[in-house]
């Protein structure tokens, strides 16, 4: 049973930060009172937000110092504009300077904000480079996905450039939104209204099963907090051997599954006896299944 006040999905960006960090430990950078708003939206007749849709700052989680960014999915779908992007980039660059035990990115976004498209796209490249710089400085970057927008577009590439990804069952991680594929390629290619198909293709369970994300949790603030804590202070290697290992993993995936038409085909080939049952499993049962698969493999 889900208790509403603990839901990560239902919470705003600010509530997520409050819910994950130690009480009263959060100090915001360039907060709403500074009114650093989008310089581009007013000309388009669009309302601005005082934080441009992202909260950035520092705090502690179980006493361990972290930097944190939280995208507000309710403002323009969490999309990345010039200021929004610069805040995340600046936070990641700060990480390389001050070396916290982790940077935590709570991503809830459709990708580039089309109203300031070019600035948003270049910002994606800057965020990614800053994330990798933080990692090279030895600071692990942890992504959490569990909001209404999932994590799409350029931010899905950023997410996979970080050390660890945690997602709730509601989380989705993909470069293209289902609507975009349907609009451009037709409903035969992707029926965006078919929610079960969306989840089997882009959802957190499929992503966990193919090795795109590292932890699946229930939609609960405490579950996210525990999962984040598990990765704090644990950078992953980023050298040539690590890149070769990643290349081997991705190449093997394409060899094994390229002819699969559906997530269920992939799961069956992974050795899951009843792939049709996967979507209904709760987080604990699902993680038990993942554990059994990984145990059987080693």
């Amino acid at each position: 049973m889900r208790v509403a006040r603990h839901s990560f999905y239902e919470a705003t960006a600010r509530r997520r930060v409050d819910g994950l960090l130690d009480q009263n430990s959060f100090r915001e950078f360039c907060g709403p009172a500074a009114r650093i708003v989008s310089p581009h939206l007013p000309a388009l007749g669009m309302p601005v937000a005082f934080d441009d849709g992202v909260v950035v700052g520092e705090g502690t989680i179980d006493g361990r110092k972290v930097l944190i960014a939280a995208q507000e999915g309710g403002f323009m779908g969490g999309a990345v504009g010039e200021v929004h992007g610069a805040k995340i980039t600046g936070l990641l660059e700060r990480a390389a300077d001050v070396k916290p035990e982790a940077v935590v990115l709570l991503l809830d976004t459709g990708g580039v904000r089309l109203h300031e498209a070019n600035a948003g796209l270049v910002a994606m490249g800057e965020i990614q480079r800053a994330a990798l710089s933080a990692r090279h400085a030895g600071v692990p970057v942890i992504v959490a996905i569990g909001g209404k927008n999932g994590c799409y577009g350029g931010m899905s590439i950023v997410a996979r450039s970080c050390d660890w990804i945690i997602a709730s069952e509601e989380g989705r991680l993909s470069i293209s939104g289902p609507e975009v594929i349907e609009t451009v390629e037709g409903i035969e290619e992707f029926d965006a209204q078919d929610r079960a198909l969306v989840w089997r293709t882009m959802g957190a369970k499929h992503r966990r099963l193919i090795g795109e994300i590292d932890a699946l949790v229930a939609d609960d603030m405490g579950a996210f907090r525990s999962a984040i804590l598990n990765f704090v202070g644990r950078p992953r290697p980023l050298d040539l051997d690590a890149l070769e290992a990643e290349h081997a993993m991705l190449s093997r995936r394409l060899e094994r599954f390229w002819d699969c038409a559906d997530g269920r085909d992939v799961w069956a080939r992974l050795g899951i006896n009843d792939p049709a049952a996967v979507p209904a499993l709760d987080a604990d049962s699902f993680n038990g299944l993942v554990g059994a698969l990984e145990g059987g493999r080693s």
Partner: protein
Amino acid sequence: MSEAASAMDRVLVELFGEDHGVVRDAATLTGVARFDGRAVTVVGTADRAVIGADVALRLARAVLDAMRDEPGRPILVVVDNAGHRLSRRDELMANNGCIAHLTRCLDAARRRGHRVVGLVHDLAVSGGFMATGLSTDLCYALPGSEVRVMAPAAMARVTKIPLDRLEELSAVNPVLGPGVENFIRVGGLEGVWDGDLMAHFREALSRPLDGADMRRALGESRGGRSAAARVAAAVRAGAAA
């Protein structure tokens, strides 16, 4: 060979000579060419390719090989794409993870001392530009090419801003509309290579760089992206306001 492909070949010939050694496999370009007496790895795509999971991995392999074979060897990334591939299969395979892998390989090459230069030929779109040009040290465009996030008509539909209004605003604000000139102004492109391509490439290979991301500063000095540099610096300093 299509007109665009032969135009691409002319560019390679002009830079590296008739026997440039760059091989086309479907839309993918890979090879080791010679420039001023030293080896240069060429990776990229042609014919407005779409970057699918398989394409991303093929390009990543060439970048990994360059790092393994010869530390410091320059890499030219030829950018010609219509974006990432929009398909159910690519999403099922997690195209974002495969593209992230390509960009991480390019990033690793930069940090290990390979000069990574991008060159947009014909077209670069959104995720396709992020997969390639945005992961280079310096990215340029050839005259007549285009860089964009989305075609104006589609952008008008999604943003619900009338097309004529959007085009009117694009004329005065470089963050909004497509075009190489706009991407130069926001700092996403270094400049245009017209005239002597070898001279341009030579300059890009020898330019002293310290590894800092200069794109925000460029966008600020060129008046195309005035807020980003200041905001990022304030957050980096941990400023309350």
